[in-house]
């Protein structure tokens, strides 16, 4: 009855009931707020720079702390997925990015990043000592470090069983080494794609036959580098003694072990090594572009470059930076690594991935 009284009182002077706000206005409101609204979980204010990257990235602690005390900006890391997956997310969010800087574009995906409009041009000062062939002509991406992707093997496993270890790509399809190799899915993983590019550079047009032979020889495919290394590789307790990894994996193993006199169990097949350079770029539409540029400058600074080997087990891109002792002793520097031009990779990448998936499924 009360409702009826309220409605009676709402009658205007003409006796007609005052209209309630029409549904149309309400729906306009909702649509309008959907368009204008832009919430995000990461804090985007001038006191922090958000670095978007792939899972497992280790921020060099000391240089980051010094960066904060000098510029007053905290580095927030947003890391999930493998390199390729993280990059595609950045491309999909082009113009409305989740952070300010993206780190993790490497040689194999460089052309994909260059062709997109997800990055803005920035040419920092500190690029002395950098091999000019790795520089991005468009200026959108800055090289930060260098990692060489190779086929690694567990030398103690082979020594215990008195089996000769692999010395080339051809050895991986040898039946005596059947079911011993784990590679990485190239569709989303940067070292996985680097391995594919290296085989393509070695075998040329017959590379699909090589992949078919790999598949017939019982190769396993991991979803990412950390799965391959920490789950499938024999040094970590898995069942495969041959793994696609980095030339810096031996010193990484020594650093990771508790024994100071340890000798790494991992050895590198140098004829399978392909050089990879990792790039960083300022994201278009970033909330803090000046902080982003400052972070890239910082990544090229002496202290950051010197901290890279022991934090992420990669080599600094500036060749004059001194390496730590464990790297001098155990890191493998192949004399002539396979080098594939990023433009070639860009043209062939989709065909390679498609052919790989056809063969491996």
């Amino acid at each position, binding site marked *: 009855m009360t409702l009826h009284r309220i*409605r009676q009182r709402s009658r205007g002077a003409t006796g007609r*009931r005052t*209209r*309630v706000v*029409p*549904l*149309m206005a309400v*729906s306009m409101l909702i*649509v309008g*707020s*959907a*368009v204008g*609204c*832009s*919430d*995000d*979980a*990461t804090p985007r204010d001038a006191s922090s720079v*958000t670095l*978007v990257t792939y*899972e*497992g*990235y280790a921020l060099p602690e000391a240089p980051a702390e010094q960066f904060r005390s000098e510029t007053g900006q905290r580095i*927030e*890391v*947003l*890391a*999930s*997925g493998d390199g*390729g*997956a*993280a990059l*595609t*997310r950045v*491309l*999909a*969010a082009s*113009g*409305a990015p*989740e952070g300010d800087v993206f780190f993790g574009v490497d040689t194999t995906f460089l052309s*994909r990043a260059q062709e997109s409009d997800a990055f803005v041009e920035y040419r920092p000062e500190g690029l002395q000592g950098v091999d000019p062939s790795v520089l991005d002509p468009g200026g959108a991406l800055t090289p930060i470090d260098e990692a060489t992707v190779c086929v690694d093997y567990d030398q103690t496993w082979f020594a215990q069983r008195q089996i000769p270890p692999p010395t080339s790509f051809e050895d991986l399809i040898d039946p005596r080494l059947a079911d011993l190799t784990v590679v990485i*899915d190239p*569709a*989303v993983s940067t070292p996985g794609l680097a391995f594919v590019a290296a085989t393509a550079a070695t075998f040329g047009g017959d590379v699909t036959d090589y992949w078919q032979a790999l598949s017939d020889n019982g190769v396993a*495919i991991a*979803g*990412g580098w*950390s*799965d391959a290394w*920490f*789950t*499938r590789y024999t040094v970590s307790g898995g069942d495969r003694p041959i793994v696609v990894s980095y030339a810096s994996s031996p010193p990484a193993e020594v650093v990771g072990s508790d024994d100071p006199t340890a000798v790494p169990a991992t050895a590198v097949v140098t004829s399978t090594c392909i050089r990879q350079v990792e790039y960083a770029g300022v994201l278009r539409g970033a909330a803090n572009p000046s902080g982003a540029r400052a972070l890239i400058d910082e990544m090229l600074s002496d202290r950051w470059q010197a901290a890279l080997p022991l934090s992420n087990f990669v080599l600094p891109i500036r060749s004059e930076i001194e390496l730590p002792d464990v790297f001098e002793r155990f890191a493998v520097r192949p004399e002539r690594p396979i080098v594939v031009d990023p433009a070639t990779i860009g043209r062939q990448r*989709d065909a390679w*991935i*498609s*052919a790989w*998936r*056809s063969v*491996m*499924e």
Partner: protein
Amino acid sequence: MIARRSAWPTRAAWFVVVAAFVGGTAVPLIAVVSQARTAGGDALIAEVVSWRIGRILVTSVGQALVATALALVVGTIAGWCHVRLDFRGRSLVWAASVIPFVMPAIVIAAGVRSLVAGEVSWTVIVLTHASMNVVVVMRAVAARLSSVDPSIEDAARTLGCGPGSAASRTSLAASVGAIASSGLLVATFCLTAFSTMLVLGGGRKTTLEVEIWIQATRLFRLDIASALAALQMVIVLVFMFLAAVVRSPDAARGGLAPADPVRRRPRGPSERGLVAASSALVLLSASVPLAALVGGAFRSNGSWTLDHVASLAHSVPGTSGVASPLESFALSAALAVVAAILTMFVAVPAAVVVARTGRVARLADQLLVLPLSASAAVIGFGWFLAYRSPPVDLRGSMWAVPAVQAAVCVPIVLRLLVPQLRVVRPDLSDAALVLGAGPWRRIRVTVWVPLRRAVFTGAAVGFVLALGEFGASAFWSRTGTPTVAQMIAGLLSRPGSDRQGTALALALLVGVSAVAVFTLPELVRVWLRLRSSRHIAARVPAT
């Protein structure tokens, strides 16, 4: 007609329906088709020439057909047994049959994944799909058979048919339409299954639905993805069209059933065997995945532990800046509430529009079913193509996920609401007008009162669907704030028993929430009935 009724509530309902259809379905699907035409054609031809897409097409349709065949056999038998026979546990089997269907697919997929070590075979995938959809066939057959006179079977036995052919040549022959249309519906669901294929396929096995997602979000080949999405739309539309066509008038056959059919006990070993087998299969499909979840979530290395449950509160190791599983669950639940509200906001006016008779209403009915036809991945991808640049750029917005989930949920909730409105007498509104009711009062009488219970059920269904939704929201993932389905799938895709355990604990949490939400309308109903009976008791004076 006595007076000109105020038309604006009806106009408002039409506006909402048209706006929702255009924005939620038409624009995204047009975006997919136009992208496919401009960029996809050549790419698709190139891919087809490399015969990979042809193989994916064959596996997608093939697994759907095999799963449908299984579901048809088990569902028809179980439905017949439920209607004709009386056996112990009949109500339990009936109630349990719906569990694998209403439980979010990601929960079922996680449970099945935990049971199989290593790669999951196609057999397991097909069995999972069949068990999730057997209830569709079972209920369709049971509904049809309950309107068929059971004595024709007895007549057939008298005339010399054996026990099996008596049923199949009479009652089931009269239900062919129901069986066929439910079978096509099941085929559509199996074809467009996303969560199960992503989790169980493990990246090596794909169907068309998952391939659209991989091409769009992993390989960033929007041209191939749009071509595949267009292909998927065509196949699904063909299935849905066939389903509408075969729903032919069954009513002519079979005779009229008595109002209260008497069920008989199973006669003979073959009937008892059928009852036992079909009931066991239904109960197993309801209980096995959930039992596996409970087992996996609370066990580690063979011993019972709460570690996995505790790990829900911590960020996944290796990631940074990403929400913990518990946070992603809370976020998904909040977004699911928003999605449920948006769904009801569209579905209630849509039900009002569709429940009317007339050509326009029938057209609206067909069009609003379209998102269901187009599959969640196609809808999510369509939204991604349509709404990622000005004037409407939803990429940074938290509204994207609930909105696209609502687009997927509306047709399903609509199917719940429309039957309730169809029983309302059309002249009820005129009668209310004569008695002096204003437009809001008339709406309350003709829309709200019949829909009251269905709205609660519909909101619950919308919430559970949105909570576990994966296919559409997978195109809108944000690094820092994954939905709960993305988090479960992400954890399951990385080997390592800790991550598996966390994924199973999270899936169990989602499953328990789904059960809780579904029982809520029942509790509300019971409470309302208690309250009204108390009012009646209060008004009747004690004598």
